């Protein structure tokens, strides 16, 4: 299966479905250490992205670039999510779109896409690993992706998703020093970071989007 624009569109659809399904769980995580809106924020954003993509069909005749899809994701998230996660995911997808201005992604461009996303978040949020933010899911994902090797880009995605998942779980004991959860100080420990969890869901959706293609 190719990680092409069709995959990117399926990624969006799978993401929207995953976020909608996890909306209440994400909200509950954010209720514990934030303000309880992360699920609603992302759900609003990804529903808007789906609508936007439906209204923007692939160009007739010429092949659509992966980056073109991701750029639409970026601008739509930026203008509909709000909160901290809106500009952060927006920047992540914007940088990723630049790294993905091609018709299909190979192993190295998957790694580059993930790296660009992480760099975008770190730059925008002035965050570093260990601060109990979405960076703690993106950073191990990038590391795992880079370490995968081989020539199967989906395997790279899968390694990234697995690592993001583990990274998100690993935020539980951390004390937050960035974002709203930092206001709680020590009381933030013992809860999973909602942004890290949503990151894990989005990367898992990227894998499902590729697998769905596989099965078809």
């Amino acid at each position: 299966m190719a990680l092409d624009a069709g995959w990117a569109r399926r990624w969006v659809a799978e993401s929207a479905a995953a976020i909608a399904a996890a909306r209440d769980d994400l909200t509950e995580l954010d209720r514990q250490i934030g303000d309880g809106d992360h699920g609603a924020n992302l759900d609003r954003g990804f529903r808007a992205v789906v609508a936007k993509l439906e209204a923007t069909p692939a160009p007739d005749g010429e092949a659509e670039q992966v980056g073109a899809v991701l750029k639409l994701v970026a601008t739509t998230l930026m203008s509909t999510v709000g909160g901290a996660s809106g500009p952060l995911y927006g920047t992540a997808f914007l940088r990723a779109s630049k790294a993905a201005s091609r018709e299909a992604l190979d192993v190295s461009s998957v790694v580059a896409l993930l790296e660009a996303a992480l760099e975008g978040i770190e730059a925008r949020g002035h965050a570093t690993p260990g601060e109990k933010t979405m960076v703690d899911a993106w950073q191990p994902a990038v590391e795992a992706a880079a370490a995968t090797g081989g020539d199967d880009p989906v395997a790279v995605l899968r390694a990234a998703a697995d690592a993001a998942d583990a990274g998100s779980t690993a935020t539980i004991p951390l004390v937050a020093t960035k974002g709203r959860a930092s206001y709680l100080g020590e009381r933030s420990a013992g809860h999973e970071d909602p942004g890290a969890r949503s990151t894990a869901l989005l990367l898992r959706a990227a894998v499902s989007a590729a697998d769905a293609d596989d099965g078809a």
Partner: protein
Amino acid sequence: MKKLLDDPENAVADSLAGFAAAHADLVEVRGLDGAQPLFVTRAAGAVPGKVGLVSGGGSGHEPLHAGFVGDGMLDAAVPGAVFTSPTPDQIAPALQAADTGRGVLAIVKNYTGDVLNFETAVELAEAEDVEVATVVVNDDVAVEDSLYTAGRRGVAGTVAVEKIAGAAAARGDDLAAVTAVAQRVIDNVRTMGVALAACTVPHVGKPSFDLGDDEIEVGIGIHGEPGRHRVPAATASEVTRLLLEPVADDLGLQAGERVLLFVNGMGGTPLSELYVVYGRARSLLEQRGVTVARSLVGDYVTSLEMQGASVTVLRLDDELERLWDAPVRTPALHW
């Protein structure tokens, strides 16, 4: 959850539609149809030759910010979803609408979301040749300020920043001067809040935190976030001490100084209780030899229907006092 709302997802727009109709003499709400970005401006538009003032943030803090649009205060306010900062595509046109060539001051409360979305919007507005300065309000002493955290939150002190900067702009100050006076307010204002009961975000449907029948949450923010610590319910005198002392200490208030004392309700506490807290806070200040020269008591920066209050102290000087006293004519503040 029982609320006087129709579709919770439309709560912000429904409320702003009523607000626009009730105060059509003072404000205009743009984008209610959803076709354009949503923001609030003065009914008469921006004032030529005046520095523009724009603020914004998540909804659920009414009357902040839209209630402060009008003569002597804001030129535009940008409401996000409940407790969620607005997006750059709302903020940027509001900055543009407030500009009449002398530049715009953006007043941002210190939350990652607000800061990031305003940052992006300022870039967009600057690309349209609007000169924008930004101040970040961070008056909440409940949160430790450190280089390694998101820093203190912006809470009720925002009203003082908007009022005083608004008066400076109204008297003709240039952008640098308005920015400087806003920053001076920020440097001299501190707040701390308490919740007796949490609030419920409409589209979430359950309380933002769970509090026992005899516990209160000290050091809460205005987004239904849990506070710094939970203590047994106590008398107004005891609670006021827990709020006022850190505020006064952090400000380093000295005997002989003059202050504005502002007791703010979080939305679900009767005015009568706010006056009790005001009386106690004033006594504590007087015990320190501090003079309460100006006062404000009421629900100005709320957290939906949260039961609780915050105590804000602003160190005054002659100029800040004059600017505070200057006329203001907005839906929520009027003198």
